[in-house]
Each structure stands twice: as C-alpha cells, then as structure tokens.
C-alpha cells in the first residue's frame, strides 16, 4: 500500500509540486487560516523534479482561477488536483497567463496604477524566469519584485 506523507482528503483541492520555499506563500494566497475544514501543509517532501517540494491539501474548497494565477507566479511547477470522494476528478498544471490583472502590485511607487483605484495590469514578457512589464509605466519586474495584492 502506498504511504502518504500528508493524509488524503475526501473532497477539496490539492496543490502539489510547490517549490519548497514558496509553500507558505502559497498557503497565504489560499488564505488557509480562514478555512473551516481540514487543511494539511507539508514541506521538505522528496521530489524527483524539485529535490524538495511542498504540498497543501484543503478540504471542501475548489481553488479559483485568480488563486491559480497567483500561485503560477511564485510556484510555476505546481500542479492542482481537484478531489471528490477521495478520487482525483481534475488535474492540471498552473500556468502564467499572458496578462496579469489586479493580482500583482507594480513595484514603481510613482506608477499611476498605485493611485486612483487603478487595477494593476502587467504583461508577461518572459515566463521562466518570470519578467513582467507594467502596462502603464513600462517598468520591468522580476520574481524578486513581485508583490501580490
């Protein structure tokens, strides 16, 4: 019988293959502290692909596209499994979209998108390593500059 480092959940979402160091950031994105059902977080798990990986299992929650897009920016290798009655009913890799709207703050403090309730818009110029160009002020951001809203 296969041994699981992190127990199975009956219904909900499993985010696997998270870059180990980004696990708690992904937990923040998913706002796990406000979940009422079971939440399991594993770190430092063995991974052929990543060396060490993180995994998060959230009972009773189907993660939405905005959360998937945010996760893609900080854990580009992550996979999402939707679980129903202990079975995987849907599985997909996160993917960085071409345009990122309203989820990343432009790092330029003088950018108009940081004022007047303007929704931030960043065009993805490179996916790996990630490079984003602000639609408004044209500044280029790399992974270290990303601040999620």
């Amino acid at each position, binding site marked *: 019988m296969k041994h699981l480092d992190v127990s199975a959940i009956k219904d909900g979402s499993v985010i696997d293959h998270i870059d180990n160091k980004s696990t708690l950031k992904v937990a923040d994105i998913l706002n796990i502290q406000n979940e009422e059902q079971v939440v399991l977080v594993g770190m430092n798990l063995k991974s052929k692909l990543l060396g060490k990986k993180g995994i998060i299992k959230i009972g009773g929650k189907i993660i939405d596209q905005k959360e998937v897009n945010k996760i893609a920016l900080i854990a580009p290798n992550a996979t999402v499994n939707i679980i129903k009655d202990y079975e995987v009913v849907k599985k997909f890799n996160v993917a960085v979209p071409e345009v990122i709207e309203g989820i990343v703050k432009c790092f330029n403090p*003088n950018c*108009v998108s940081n004022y007047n309730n*303007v929704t931030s818009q960043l065009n993805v110029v490179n996916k790996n390593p990630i490079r984003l160009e602000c639609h408004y*002020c044209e500044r280029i951001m790399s992974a270290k500059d990303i601040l999620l809203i």
Partner: protein
Amino acid sequence: MVSFKQRDIISIRHFNKEELLYILDLAKQMERTTYTDTLKDKILASLFFEPSTRTRLSFESAMQRLGGMVIGFADSGITSVAKGESLRDSVKIIEGYCDIIVLRHYLEGSAQLAADVVNIPVINAGDGANQHPTQTFLDLYTIQKTKGALEGLTIGFLGDLKYGRTVHSLAYALAYFGAEMFFISPPGLRMPRDSIDELKDRKVKCYEHESLSGISKKLDVIYCTRIQKERFADPVEFEKVRGVYRLSKAMLEELEIKKDLKILHPLPRVDEMDESLDKTNYAVYFHQARNGVPVRKAILSAVLGVIE
C-alpha cells in the same frame, strides 16, 4: 502602410523605424509653411499637471499654426483636481470638449491610463520619469537635420543618464539606425542596467565612461542633460562632478573633437552648458527647441487624420 490616424502617442516603444521616419518626413514638409487651416475645426485640450515651457507652448503654437483651437490649463490647482477628482474622471469629462488630449502628469503611466479611458487620441507630453515621445521625435528630427542623416552616427550621452527620460527614449529610437553609443556620466547616475542590456540585445555597440577625454574625437553628436543637485546626498560629491560635466567653448577647444560635432540638450539648462557655446557651430539646442513646432504639427496632423 503607415497610419497614425486616431492613434495614441504614449511611448516611443510603440513605433517602428518606418513610423519614426514618416513623422520626420512630415515635419520637414511642415517647416515649409508657417500657417494653414487644416485643423480649423479641431480643438486640442492641453492638460499640464506639471510645469512646462517648451512642450506646452510648442504644442499650442503647432495647433494654432494649423488653424486649430486650444483649451486647457497649465496649473491643475485651478481645476477640479484640487477638489480631489481622479485623473480618470478628469480626462473622461474633458474628452467631451475636444478632439485630442495632450497630457503631462507627474505619475508614470498616466498617459496610458488616460488613453485607456477615452475614445479620442491622447499624446503623452511627459509622464513622470517614464516617457516623453514627442521630445524624442524632435531630437531625432534635429539630429537628422543637422547631421544630414540618422544612420551610423556615434552619439555621446552626457550627464544624468539614470533619471533622464529623454536619454532612454532617444537611445531606444537611435538603435533603429545603427548608432554607436557612449554613455558618459558620474558613477551614481549611470544609464540603467535594463536599458543597456536591451540595447545590447538589439546589437547596439554601447560603452560607459566617466569623462569625455579619450572618446570626444569619435563623437558626431553630444546629447547633454542636466545633472540635478538634488540627486546627490553629499553636496561635496556634486561639486566634484559638476565641473567634469560642464561643457564650454574652452573645454571643447582643449579636447579633440570633430569639426562638425553637434551638441543637443532638451533644455532647460542650468550650468552644464556654458553660454560661450551658444554662438559656436556646435550648439544646436535652440534650433532643437524650435523644431518642437514642425514636429508637433506633423504629429497633430497625422493623428487627427488630415494627412494620410
């Protein structure tokens, strides 16, 4: 086919070489006539949220020389902005009063925001430290006019290359024309690394130096910018560098330079260019400022669609 009809002019990056040359050719035609009435039914809204002399007046002069009318303000303190109105609301309302908006604003990206919310063309007349595309068009026009061509020149950019938006845009545009570029600045005011990397990616030969000595004889053009005292934490450091970057007739006579060297400056100058230069054949910065009118006439005519 090149068409500027109803296009926004936000960033020099939005234009290819053919489009840049199209505006320069049109500007040449515009210089032949001082007044026409091709824009007689058009109204330009000149919205300046930041101080300006050359850009605002040359846009207004250009519009009036084409027979058009100008509304607007040069001090946002007397508008609803002072009551807390957002930029988005301001331009949406003003859109109903005019055919084209010229906008200068202290926030970077403000012209793009305005262009996104209105259905008439928006021309960026400077958005913070980001872009000032019509300045780049007139810089190119001045270089082309005084050097005879844009291809294959060696350009020295001198002064504050870190914060100078005109330098970044002009370097980007000159890369289309095979220019070799020397960036001459104090260490703390160097050209941003991203800009240098981008130029190198575009196969531009570019070099960084801290003074003109040793390279002055190679230059066809010097594009000089103001070194701002407020950029230096230590006033002693500022005093050390200001002399090195202060061009004068005597300094040029001591350096080895090409006889047909041309010196440009987006102005205003403070003390980085001595008045002794003004009457030399090297100085073209006052012509450069004057070229704002034909270049902006060309842009207004092309965008408002009276010239196809």
